[in-house]
């Protein structure tokens, strides 16, 4: 058993799998960094991801174009997250309850719409998902090549988005405004920054990323939509954001750990390791709790985190 695990082939496939499985956690986490930096906790990521997964699949299924699927997933994610923006920014509702509501609604609505659109069929409807693209030259590097450079386009896109997001947050006026709104909305307001608008934009950016993360599940990783296929990844992403201390680069590391847990679980199961496979399946969830308890105490949350802003109150 151990000889099978300690081979290069196994390790390479494990690491490549980990990179792939980290994407549907990394994408919603990056979006949530924007949202949380602006002071909003969106716990509805799970529901948004499911809506995105459905949108991606429906778009790809009916048009035959995966890219239209991706676009639809992003739009659906943005529209669905507007509900969160209205509840948290305009209505100033409790964000935790709003997030839970969004998750329940997204879970129900995605399943409902899937049933309505496709009916009950013997074989689930399927599409051809994104294929892996081997990047010339780079993919020939031993070990590193297959681990990093033989993935589908959405994986590469994710890493580009990480860099872009880091730049936007750190080096642009918009990023500065976002942080100001999350740290001290009153001061930001007095400088003429529209607190409500920035928060709306950040929640919707979070929705776009979560929608894309959902699309990765349905048309980048699987070839169909399954009820509740996000399986808690939306919540794991929130844990990754805290672990990453609201830094996109650190989120890559956090998401990779979870990708590794998922990939390990699949491969150990395939090898027939004498650990009950339910324990392996529970691994990412146990890991999430461990990560949370190790980082939460020291975490330096944005000062206005989860606090609704009201212009009238000083």
């Amino acid at each position, binding site marked *: 058993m151990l000889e099978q695990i300690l081979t290069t082939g196994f390790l390479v496939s494990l690491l490549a799998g980990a990179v792939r499985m980290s994407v549907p956690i990394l994408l919603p986490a990056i979006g949530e960094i924007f949202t949380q930096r602006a002071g909003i906790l969106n716990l509805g990521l799970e529901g948004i991801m499911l809506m995105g997964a459905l949108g991606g699949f429906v778009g790809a299924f009916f048009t035959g174009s995966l890219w239209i699927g991706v676009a639809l997933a992003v739009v659906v994610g943005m529209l669905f997250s507007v509900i969160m923006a209205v509840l948290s920014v305009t*209505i100033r509702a409790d964000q935790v*309850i709003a997030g*839970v509501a969004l998750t329940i609604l997204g879970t*129900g609505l995605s399943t409902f719409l899937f049933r309505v659109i496709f009916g009950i069929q013997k074989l689930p409807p399927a599409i051809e998902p994104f294929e892996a693209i081997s990047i010339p030259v780079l993919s020939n590097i031993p070990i590193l090549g297959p681990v990093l450079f033989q993935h589908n386009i959405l994986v590469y896109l994710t890493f580009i988005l990480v860099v872009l997001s880091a730049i936007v947050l750190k080096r642009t006026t918009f990023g500065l405004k976002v942080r100001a709104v999350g740290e001290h909305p009153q001061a930001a307001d007095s400088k003429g920054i529209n607190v409500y608008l920035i928060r709306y934009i950040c929640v919707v950016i979070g929705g776009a990323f979560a929608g894309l993360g959902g699309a990765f599940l349905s048309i980048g990783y699987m070839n169909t939509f399954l009820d509740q296929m996000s399986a808690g990844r939306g919540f794991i992403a929130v844990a990754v954001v805290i672990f990453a201390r609201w830094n996109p680069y650190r989120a890559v590391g956090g998401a990779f750990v979870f990708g590794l847990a998922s990939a390990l679980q699949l491969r150990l199961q395939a090898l027939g390791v004498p650990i009950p496979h339910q324990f392996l399946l529970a691994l990412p969830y146990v890991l999430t709790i461990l990560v*949370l*308890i190790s980082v*939460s105490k020291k975490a330096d949350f944005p000062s206005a985190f989860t606090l609704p802003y009201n212009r009238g109150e000083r």
Partner: protein
Amino acid sequence: MKKILQNSIKGIVSPLVAVLLAFLVGALLMKAAGNNPIAAYASLFKGAFGSNHRIAETVVRAIPLIILALGISIAFKAQLWNIGGDGQFTVGAIFAVFVALTFPLSNAMLLPLTLIAAFIGGACWGGIAGFFKAKFNANEVITTLMLNYIALYLLEWLVKGPMMDPKGHGFPQTELINEGLRLPILLEGTRLHMGLFVALVLVMGVYMFWRTTLGFKTEVVGQSREVARYSGIKVNKIIIITMFISAGLAGLAGWTEVFGVHYRLLENVSGGFGNLAIVVALLANLNPWGIVVSGFFFAALVTGGNTMQRMEGVPFALVDVILGLTIIFVISRVVYRRWRDKQC
């Protein structure tokens, strides 16, 4: 007296509006999907109340739902967002069945022991999240949810592994608990069981709880951690105790379900009651008597939802849609209030 009446009317109107709006949106969705919403809601109503048998089924569903929602209401009042009802329910059921199948005691001794085991099982599962919240400030929404998944896999492992019924032809289930331990049926020919009284006793219990010192402290912690700290309340201790009690009640809900309905552990025994209970508690504004009303209401929705799926072909998931919308409309009522205040 007049004031109490006025307040209770106010307390009923706004959740009622939220529910009606949710049903209205649900109707629009069905219409768009090509179903007849009136026929669908009619079949839903008939499925929930159409016969004595259907009414009994509705009550059977209301029992664990009310108990779970009571537990959730205690945590929510302390601003602890325990969304792990499903997991705590499951672990409570596991503990109780384990005790019932393991110890060779007389039923009179064993039955109370299983009840205590269920409470402790649930309480420990939620207590983990409470402890992590108090000690490490770990977000309890995420930890309780993660514990739901872990409990689900734990149950699956047990019913397919160490606790599987050796005579069960490989079905993923445990042995049946002995007949003397099963909760008596209240109405011949239905599944309505004694658990109903357990639920009502617990409603009374939670109502009394808010009148104890501990209940008061819990409420203060919920209103403001700062104020609580200044007034000498040990906030961390209250957080852990609150989660413990809240989750223990969820464990008891598992007990009523297993000892009143299934008589054994099965995969997915909690059946998504956790989510439902969150809505039940919120709609009742965390009030124990309100929970009885909204618990019956949502139990009817689930019972009727199954009929609606069968008769009208409307996917059961519509029930989840209505749940999500109900919460959204409940938390949106402040808008209406603000608008009304501006008018004055």
